[in-house]
């Protein structure tokens, strides 16, 4: 009995050691869990794969060091070059709405920090992401590689043209808003595919728009306003 108690104590101690070392490696685990619970689940995002991915991807590694403390706040954060990393809820919402599954091939326009691509990469098989700003494209590609995402392909190019060589896509996520829906993106969307894109005048709140392609007909649905999501005119 005495020995059993000792073993139990040892097991529990080692568990604590594991938990502590895990917390030491990633001191934001609790912040992330809280973020998913309070900012995402409570606002209606229910897709298990999305929630799991949001819990797993270390958002604080995708923000500038001086913003790390704020990484799990309920807001977008500046990442330089006039761009921001979207609010966690927006990332989750956009991910859920395109109905990702493990066989999906998706295109992201506007890599930015690389966070959205990482969230997608945890769920689907291939993520193609295009970023027009060279510096951001390079830094996000490096970051994603460092974090071991082998199913994310980054290209530094004008997102207007999408990524024709890998089209058609099951879904397209556009994270940089524009005043119009680029025709090449509609073309590169698979029959039955979904595209989510923030659109609107750059001087106002952008609207998240869901574009669906069914039977050769393209329909849209304006979903919700998004704020702070940066835009790149002309993209």
């Amino acid at each position, binding site marked *: 009995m005495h020995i059993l108690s000792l073993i139990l104590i040892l097991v529990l101690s080692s568990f604590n050691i594991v938990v502590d070392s895990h917390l030491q490696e990633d001191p934001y685990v609790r912040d992330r869990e809280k973020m998913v619970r309070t900012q995402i689940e409570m606002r209606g995002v229910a897709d298990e794969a999305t929630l799991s991915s949001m819990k797993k991807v270390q958002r604080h590694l995708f923000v500038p060091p001086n*913003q790390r403390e*704020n990484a799990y706040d*309920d*807001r*977008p*954060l*500046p990442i*330089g*070059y*006039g*761009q921001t990393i979207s609010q966690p809820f927006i990332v989750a919402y956009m991910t859920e709405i395109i109905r990702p599954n493990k066989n999906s091939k998706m295109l992201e326009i506007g890599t930015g920090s690389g966070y959205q691509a990482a969230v997608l990469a945890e769920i689907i098989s291939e993520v193609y992401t295009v970023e*027009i*700003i*060279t510096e951001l494209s390079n830094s996000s590609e490096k970051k994603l590689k460092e974090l071991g995402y082998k199913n994310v392909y980054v290209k530094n190019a*004008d997102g*207007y043209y999408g990524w024709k060589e890998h089209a058609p896509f099951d879904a397209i996520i556009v994270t940089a808003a524009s*005043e*119009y*829906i*680029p*025709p090449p993106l*509609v*073309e590169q969307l698979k029959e039955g595919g979904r595209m989510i894109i923030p*659109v*609107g*005048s*750059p*001087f*106002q*709140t952008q*609207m998240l*728009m869901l*574009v669906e392609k069914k039977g050769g007909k*393209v*329909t*849209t*649905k*304006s*979903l*919700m*306003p998004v*704020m*702070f999501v*940066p*835009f*790149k*005119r*002309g*993209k």
Partner: protein
Amino acid sequence: MNCFGLNIKRIFISILLLSISIIAYQLLLMHIFSITQWYHFAFMIISVALLGFGAAGSFIALFKNRLIANAPWLIPFSMLISGLLQCCAVFLSQLSFARFDSYLIFADYTQFINLIITYLIFFLPFFFGALSIGLSFIIYIDQIGKLYFFNLVGSGLGGISVLIMYSIFLPEEISSLISLLPIISALILLPMYYKKIFTVVFILSIAVSVFFFINPSPLKKSEYKSISKTLNLIDAKVVFTKNSPYGLIEVVSSPVLRYSQGLSLAYQKEVPQSKAIFLNGDWFGAIVKANNGKNEFLHFTASALPYVMNEKERVLILNAGSGIESAQAINYNINSITAVEQNSIIISLMKNEFAEDSDSLYHHKNLTIRNIDSRTFLQADTNKYDLITLPYTNSFGGGVGLNALQEQYLLTTDSFEEMFDHLNSEGVISVSSWIDYPFRNPLKVLSTIVEVLHKKNISEYKNHIAAVKSWGTITFVVKRSPLNSEEIMNIRSFCDSLMFDPIILPDLSESERTKYNSMQDEKFFEYIDEILSGHRSRFYEEYDFNIKPADDDQPYFSQFLKWKSLSYLKDVYGIRNAPFLEIGYLLVMITFIQIIIVAFVLIILPLFKTDLSRRDVRRTLPKAFLRNFGGFPEGSGKLKTLIYFGAIGSGYMFVEIIFIQRFILYFGNIIYASAAVVSSMLICSGVGSYLSSKIKGSKRNLIVLCGLIFAVLVLYKFLLTPVLQSTIGFEFFLKVVIAFSLIAVPSFLMGMPFPIGLKIISTGNKSLVAWAWGINGCLSVASSILVVIVAVEFGFAMVMFIAALSYLTAALTNVSLYHLVNKLE
């Protein structure tokens, strides 16, 4: 010469030069902040100037004796420091320890520290400038009429001179030039016995100015401004820069820059590349090709609606900008197009430097360009048109309240009525808007249209209005006569071919509204129907945002904020995001509250100091307060001083703003009208001040004078607008004469109460002079913000009424209540 050994003429010239520099510097800073941040920071500069003037007034009141004793060197020294700081402040504010970004203030609270440092940097030149003016006023109180004349004339010239400089120099170069004036002012006043010491300082000061002129520190714009974002695009570069009174105009090119607002999903070709024009770093417009066929995409936007409804021959394009709507008209082969644009620099760019990029759009044979404000054009024009188009309403920047406080005379019911009167029997007005959320812009456009139809005694609104919605935009057309069956058919066919949905049309079924483009929040359609119904007034009251149509009295189309909706915004979007929906008006309110606090401290602080010793302040504060504010007979005159100088300070500012607003419409050019009004007023008031020295400084005269101003302003309240409306079509020169005469009379009179009042109080209690001067400065500047709030909430008629009331109050303060009460008894 006087007791200080200074020649009074030198003082006059110094005050003139210093006043030129202070006003020019203030306007320059407003210009610079519009470029690097957003135009709301103009209000910040106003408050910084207030702080400088108010603090200088307090400083003088607190240390009057010591300052006066050292005045011979202190006045030129303050001028010199003011000049040097003017020269360096812009440079200093751009260094990393001070530089702030207004966008980041809401994301990174440490930016507030940088904001405070910036405040301080810009506060100092105003403080030292005001210190030397205030000291001069006190020391040479016997010459106050003339001093005030040079002060006012200098301020007037400052406004004009900076506008001239805008046309020649870049903003970052101008501060060095302006800074030379205070340095020269100081040089003029330099006493002989200090000359050796100061010669070296002056040479160094001038060297610093020259250095910053030759090597100006480039303005660093917020990275969240449209131009900064655009410059992040591949191979993006600024290909043209020109500073102008309209603002800093820059043209950016990039191989990946494209433009097409609300393009149909049916469009499958490439959107052509275009260059983009930016005004003060904000998006102004794209330069698109004019040639028919090259811009097929212009047929694929909802704004093409009026062209497919029926045949058009004569088209009027208001606020034509860089010519998108003109290109669209040309692409629809319209024979007679009149494009109205008040910004002459943009017209010049399109006709010259960028003619090739637009396929000589502004030289097109079918297009006539009129360089005038759109409303002024409408009021003077007698032609009729088949179509009158306006640019996207949100392109004015209203969507986040950025332009909430900008008068938009083109989007008022009066304006739409004028447009309606310019239509042929089959003619239409077309106006497009982005569908914002919460819904504001499209609802206000519709409410404006419905209100105009109502005024025109048309009750069946739906028979005259068609609205078509794309995935993100909505285009309204309002027809003078009812829509006929062919037009309705054309509209339906247009919608089907381009995947748009009709949302207002006679005999429209509910399902048609969402055939291609649905909305999560379908209340939008309910709101549209409410406005079209007979009980729209109730809807205006109940809706969370102000969507009641704007009129010429309250021309703030983009002011959607209702104070009661603030809690709604907070609940729905979170407090951190709420300001982004209606930021403009909120910023002004915050600035105003801040100013009230500062003004209170600056006025009250010296009030107690001049009466009580420091250690007695706390103990006797309530008593002192009662004594000074409780009644006239026993008090030392401070309450009357406060009311009198406060009333004439704010009254003057209210009149100035009213004149600017009325003459913008009269002349059709916001920049030149503002400069002309401000300068004419100040110069005429300066003449009034100069001649006031011939008027005996008595209370009776002040009562008569202020009563006269009150009477003139009451007369103007009723006559000004009708006189301007009936003479708007006159020749330019005649209009200038009329305008100047209208401005000159009240301005001349309004120049007198300040110097006469100062003279009177100086004979009794000299310590009140600096205080009175501070009150006048504080209230003038605080009123420049208050006037905006009054205009937004109650309209310009109320502004004029308050202006008149201010002078009546000033008159009444000179009627001794004590004697009045005795007589009554």
